[in-house]
């Protein structure tokens, strides 16, 4: 794999993960547990889709095969999607929505923070804006984890169940592969070892404050999103998300 290929792969991971989580959150329109949450979750979704657009645009320029940012988003099938498996998991109850967000936000925050120092200026620029948004996302999801964990008996049970349910998808966030290593070597991506430490450090700290337990680091992990092997959910997400461009391939303007 050339460095150029690794960079394209890496950009698609960032873009697709943002996009799919934004899509999941927009499924909650009009269905959030409170009006304030309606605002907050749409706000996060907007940030994520906005970031996805920035990453797709850069990826489209580098790939340079005539496909636009929209084409990359709306005309690739599941096996070409590179998002983390975590973000494609269903919304579940609000505890699952929050736990998914929290695990992702910790990864997202430390990744973006590191990317602000990337040797690639375009990436550093996108990350500098995105990390401000991710800082807020992380503060919000951490607060909710604490409220649920240290709230009522029911909320504690639900968020603990959500942590248990989603733990098997956390391994992918902190297990580097060839692309991650290549990006680190190129002075773009985060140090995989550091990212792992930071992720566990913050997750354990917040979990402790929330009186929650986390799974084992060496627990069995479900991985594959970064190389295009997804859970069954992604195909359904794309079927909805890509419906119009697929159903009307002759339409060039919407």
């Amino acid at each position, binding site marked *: 794999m050339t460095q150029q290929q690794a960079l394209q792969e890496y950009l698609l991971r960032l873009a697709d993960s943002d996009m799919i989580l934004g*899509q999941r959150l*927009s*499924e909650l*329109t*009009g*269905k*959030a*547990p*409170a*009006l*304030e*949450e*309606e*605002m907050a979750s*749409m*706000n996060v*979704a*907007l940030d994520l*889709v*906005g970031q*996805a*657009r920035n990453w*797709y645009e850069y990826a489209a320029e580098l790939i340079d095969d005539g496909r636009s*940012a*929209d084409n990359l*988003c*709306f005309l690739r099938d599941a096996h070409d999607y590179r998002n983390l498996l975590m973000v494609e998991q269903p919304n579940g*109850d*609000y505890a699952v929505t929050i736990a998914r967000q929290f695990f992702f936000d910790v990864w997202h925050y430390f990744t973006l923070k590191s990317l602000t120092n990337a040797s690639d200026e375009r990436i550093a620029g996108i990350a500098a804006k995105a990390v401000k948004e991710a800082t807020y996302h992380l503060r919000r999801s951490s607060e909710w984890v*604490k*409220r*649920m964990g*240290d*709230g*009522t008996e*029911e*909320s504690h049970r*639900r968020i603990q169940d959500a942590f248990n349910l989603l733990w098997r998808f956390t391994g992918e966030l902190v297990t580097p592969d060839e692309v991650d290593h290549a990006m680190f070597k190129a002075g773009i991506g985060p140090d995989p070892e550091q990212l792992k430490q930071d992720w566990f450090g913050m997750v354990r700290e917040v979990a402790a404050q929330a009186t929650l337990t986390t799974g084992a680091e060496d627990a069995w992990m479900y991985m594959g999103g970064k190389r295009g092997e997804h859970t069954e959910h992604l195909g359904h997400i794309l079927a*909805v*998300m890509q*419906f*119009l*461009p697929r159903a*009307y391939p*002759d*339409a*060039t*303007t*919407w």
Partner: protein
Amino acid sequence: MYAQMVDTGTKRLKTLEEMSPEERDFQEKVDAETKIEAKNWMPDGYRKTLIRQISQHAHSEIVGMLPEGNWVTRAPTLKRKLQLMAKIQDEAGHGLYLYSAMETLGASRDEEVQKLHDGKAKYSSIFNYPTLNWADMGAVGWLVDGAAIVNQVVLQRTSYGPYARAMVRICKEESFHQRQGYQILLDMMREGTQEQKDMVQDAINRLWWPALMMFGPHDDESPNSQQSMAWKIKRKSNDELRQMFIDQTIPQLEYLGCTVPDPDLKWNEERGHYDFGEINWKEFYDVLKGDGPCNHERISTRKKAIDEGTWVREAAVAYAEKQKQRAAKAA
């Protein structure tokens, strides 16, 4: 109009002589265009009417997110998805803002929302119609937000200060939504395929009459209007507003190259207005009563969200309480 047929509790206007000194003082203030503020004395009927109207308006913003939520997951481009998400977020914001304006009158958000879920409070009838193709996202912005603006621009001068100020802010955002909605339709009509153009016409065909119904019944069928006008909660009559909307919308329709499903629509040189056909009032009252295509679905979705979110809100309260106790102990 996001508030239809708001009950004022009065069938006949009092003359100044029949009013108590407080009422007279209040009415004179209203007549002099002095804004009424939360701390001012106001007749009980005025307060109740405003609570009904503002809560209806807030409920409409919130229920109105659902027909758009139906398409936000299927928006065809990144740009359109971001626009629609931002519009929905604005609407949640309008809802919050309006509930706050309503709370200045001593009403409780939870209680008013409960009335909505129990079928006792209304919201705009327009949101009981389904959104069936993507062009509906353009047509809703253009026609529905457009109709709302015609009403709300006038409400910027409504007599109750907090409501008037909320309208100023909301109007700005809705004008933006309306232009965006129109642009969706215009792009499809100008550069779209025949299938896309058909979507646009289909959306207008379905939403035209329901949009006109947003202004409420004819003036002579609107028993509460007179009192609302005297209190300057309402500033123009239903029929006047409807006519204004039609007059400003038809040139935009023609520019799109589309038609509306009304054979009686034509320019009346003498009146200087468009003539138009009669609204199907049976449908209007049916939808208002609960018998519209999506009434059941809209309310049950909202009710489910709030009911299933009970444990989340309880957790937040319990956590805040614990934090407070801890802080007190530490101090």
